[in-house]
């Protein structure tokens, strides 16, 4: 509990505390409870590979129907689950006390969410996505169609089963091993809201894709076309809750996970689609098994001392250190990077220094306090794609010299000292002469 409380203490925006306290829990990170809401229980079997991979990673899945009247995310103010999987695209209204705000509050208190929609997606599901910065195509009958990069199958279909290999370039999100086979996708398109700076396109459609109703003739130009279409998006909220939004529920299904895939116009034939690797890796990211950093033991010392001072003096030499660890899925491992920086900040940064690491998670820097007094902050702002955002700051006042810390005798002032002492002596002699020499 101690390291946890340290961690929280250094988070600058104190008001986020309640959210953070319920977020990813490093004490029992493996024993996480996930509520899975389904339209009907048959999904449990049709998507069993995905669910089994989650279970194999020590996640406790609890399956419920989305209209279960006993649905509730929290009891007595405590959340019962650490994450929520909404595999119920057609649900118009949740059962129990669950609704749009409850889901959003769940996310805002630091819990994770996987949401999958398809062509039957209800307004409720779309609204949850909208709240997270993702806008599904408003045309409810539209699907993503791609006449160039569709999956070649036995029958010539309507090209709504498309393949995509336009992944986000991030080892943190999709794992170190490259996903060789393209991903099969059959579902609806969404675009990311440009006002939202946190949402990322993980899987984009090819430039030739568009979103329209495959059964009717295209009368108007489609609203969503080409690479603007996102197939799968993720959001890492400011409190590090992770959200994944997919436009296809089939993406996770056993059928697509096991299908052989060949992209139209390509000779490469894969006996298995990239879906399994894709959904597994991305679910690892969503459930904080990768890319989750923590910064602890933010310390600063005056050089040559062992206790952390409450205040520095200008021109002091100080040492700054912080430990950064990454969660590997089982335990905390040192995070190694050469681009972590510390700022000594007051209105603007006075010192900006890259921290050197010892490879064991400890990051160090030493510098001189600038010749400016005021209330400074040590700031570590570390934002890397797919990783937890680290925004640490610690306030530290810097005072000017005390009256007895200045140099007592300055060489350049010797004429003045001489002047004053000769003046004193002269006055003394003059007084004696004046008084007694008559």
């Amino acid at each position, binding site marked *: 509990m101690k390291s946890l409380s340290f961690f929280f203490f250094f988070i600058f*925006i*104190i*008001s*986020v505390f309640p*959210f953070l306290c319920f977020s990813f829990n490093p004490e029992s990170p493996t024993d996480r409870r996930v509520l899975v809401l389904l339209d009907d229980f048959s999904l449990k079997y049709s998507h069993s590979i995905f669910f089994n991979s989650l279970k194999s990673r020590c996640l406790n899945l609890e399956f419920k129907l989305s209209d279960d009247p006993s649905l509730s995310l929290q009891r007595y103010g405590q959340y019962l689950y650490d994450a929520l999987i909404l595999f119920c695209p057609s649900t118009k209204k949740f059962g129990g006390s669950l609704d749009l705000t409850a889901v*959003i509050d769940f*996310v*805002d208190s630091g819990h994770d969410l996987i949401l999958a929609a398809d062509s039957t997606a209800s307004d409720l599901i779309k609204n949850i996505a909208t*709240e*997270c*910065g993702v806008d599904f195509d408003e045309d409810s009958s539209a699907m993503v169609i791609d006449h160039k990069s569709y999956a070649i199958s036995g029958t010539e279909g309507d090209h709504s089963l498309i393949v995509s290999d336009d992944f986000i370039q991030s080892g943190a999100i999709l794992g170190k091993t490259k996903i060789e086979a393209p991903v099969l996708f059959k579902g609806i398109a969404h675009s990311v809201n440009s*006002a*939202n*700076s*946190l949402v990322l396109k993980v899987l984009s459609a090819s430039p030739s894709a568009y979103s329209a109703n495959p059964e009717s003739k295209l009368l108007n130009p489609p609203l969503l076309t080409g690479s603007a279409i996102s197939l799968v998006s993720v*959001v890492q*909220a*400011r*409190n590090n*809750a992770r*959200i994944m939004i997919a436009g296809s529920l089939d993406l996770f299904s056993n059928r697509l996970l096991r299908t052989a895939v060949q992209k139209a116009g390509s000779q490469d034939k894969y006996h298995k689609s990239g879906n399994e690797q894709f959904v597994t890796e991305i679910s690892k990211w969503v459930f904080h098994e990768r890319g989750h950093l923590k910064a602890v033991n933010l310390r600063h010392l005056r050089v040559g001392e062992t206790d952390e001072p409450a*205040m520095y003096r200008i021109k002091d030499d100080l040492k700054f250190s912080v430990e950064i660890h990454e969660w590997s899925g089982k335990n905390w491992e040192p995070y190694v990077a050469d681009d972590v920086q510390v700022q000594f900040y*007051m*209105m603007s940064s006075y010192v900006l220094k890259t921290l050197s690491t010892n490879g064991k998670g400890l990051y160090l820097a030493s510098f001189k306090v600038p010749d400016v*007094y*005021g*209330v*400074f902050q040590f700031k570590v702002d570390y934002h890397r794609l797919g990783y937890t955002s680290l925004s640490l700051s610690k*306030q530290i*006042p810097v*005072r*000017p010299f*005390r*009256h007895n810390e200045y140099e007592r005798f300055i060489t350049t002032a010797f004429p003045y000292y001489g002047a004053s002492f000769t003046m004193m002596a002269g006055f003394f002699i003059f007084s004696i002469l004046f008084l007694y020499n008559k």
Partner: protein
Amino acid sequence: MATVTNTPVSDLLKSFKLKTKQQELLIRVSILCLVYILAFIIRLFSVLRYESMIHEFDPYFNYRTTLYLTQNGFYDFWNWFDYESWYPLGRIIGGTLYPGLMVTAVLIYRILHFLRFAVHIREVCVLTAPFFASNTTLVAYFFGKEIWDTGAGLVAAILIAICPGYISRSVAGSYDNEGVAIFALLFTFYLFVKAVNTGSLAWSLASAFGYFYMVSAWGGYVFIINLIPLYVLVLLITGRYSMRLYIAYNCMYVLGMLLAMQIRFVGFQHVQSGEHMAAMGVFFLMQVFYFLDWVKHMLSDTKLFQAFLRITVTCAVAVGTIALGLGMLSGYISPWTGRFYSLLDPTYAKDHIPIIASVSEHQPTAWSSFMFDYHILLFLFPAGLYFCFKRLSDATIFIVMYGLTSMYFAGVMVRLILVATPAVCLISAIAVSATVKNLTVLLRSKNKGVLTGSTKGSSSSKASSKALLDQSQPFQKNGAIALLFGAFYLLSKYATHCTWVTSEAYSSPSIVLAARGAHGNRVIFDDYREAYFWLRQNTPADAKVMSWWDYGYQITAMGNRTVIVDNNTWNNTHIATVGRAMSSYEDEAIEIMRSLDVDYVLVVFGGVTGYSSDDINKFLWMVRIGGGVFPVIKEPDYLVNGEYRVDKGAAPKMLNCLMYKLCYYRFGEMLTEYGKPPGYDRARGVEIGNKDIKLEHLEEAFTTSNWIVRIYKVKPPNNRW
């Protein structure tokens, strides 16, 4: 004189009978004692009406620093770097305040504790100003005695003891620099006049120390360091140069300057700042005078001396001008500060420094406040000047100059009435004393003449005056009696006026407000303290509170939270930033607030109670000060046809700026007065123009019971966007 004794023997009684001189001394001492007590107790209205508490704004800072001084000792106080104010710049408190007041209070506190009086430092702080006011009456007595006679001294002591112009700054709880500084000011002047009158090095030394105390206590010492050279200059010009003056001024100036340099806040200003150059110039002029005097003494030839005089004076003036010019050009001598300019030119601040002009006590004085603060002294003052001119001496010239210059400054700035008050009291005392003396002399001489001639026996003067109605010179005598009664009437009116003003106008702590309820009962609004204690109890210890600078000292002292700006208005840009945030739209303001790490915003709102000195009424100054640094804020945007209004006809920017939103948030739903629509602002007497206020980045955290203080919390950035 009633001497209390149990012995019935008349002989013994007779032996107790005092001689006239002793009687006079006894009367004088008892009057002084009574005045001393009176001066103290008349200032206790505020304690009786409210409680023993610190008043207003600046005194809270003084109290906080005094507390720090008692807890941490002098050296920590001297080196105190305060990071709870002016976030994130901080403030070197030890180097930016006048420590005299705090040191005095702590000294009194230590003495009391040494005598085993276990008082709290707050009580000492509350009663410091009345205590020093009492001491001032003694100084006034001695000063009056020095410039006129003991009678004038006594009258001066009485007048100054209850003069509202002085009481306004020295009631119990008004723990401000001025409370001590007026004593120091008058004491320095008294010692200097004494030194000039006697030519004694000891008095001159004493005045230098008095000056040192004044410098340590208040920035108003600049008045001394300019008035005394001016006085010396006038004496030189009028040919009253003497060795006494030479000794008094040189010793006082040199030692006073050296001592004043020991105050960190003043530092080298005595040799580097334009405001102090007059004293230095006069100092050198004195040496030239002395030198010329010596040369004149050595040279017997008048013609030769005249030529020498011309050359020397020309050279001296030329050297002085060149030195001054070089100093100014090289930047070694700093130019006059804005405050000094605004004293000489009353319109200067309004055009150039809105931050000075925005303070109500820096406004030019209205005639009514002269009447209010001086009452009959306003009429006695010219009469006193007449008497002074009739009997010119070095001392009366001084008091005349002090009176005239300070009266001019009192006309420029309301708060400087305080500086003029001792002079006005002294000069009026001369008028009263001289008049009464003349009249009684007239009465007595007549009485004697009549008594010897009349067959009737001796009786009281009243009876004799009645008997003498139809005597030889009835007109003069009756006139004298009538005038005496008139003087008595006026002085008693003065006493009642002073008591009334003190109890009604000057004893309000302004942190607790009082009003009359519908049934004449007294209603207390304790909203300020409610809000500050809420802050203290409910916010994180390092929370930063943004408010207009007026409340900064109170928030740090009572709420114990970091503020962005406070009443020590040393950084105009920082204040302008806050003014800009308050007068911007919410989404622009949030950027400024985030950059300053603001957690809470505090506004003062009087719409419910009708409290008129709230932030909406101060708002135009925020716009002006903000606009002075950030031209994006333009005053006309907030006005409609040059008119400032908050109702439906208000300017759109006004209706949607942060300050308006924060003040009137949820106010549109509220019924404040019977028979008026909801959202009726009682302070301005209008129905507000924007009743549907939505806040996006802030949320209401606390509103006091009478809505006077409203505190908002800055929301963290949206979690998912």
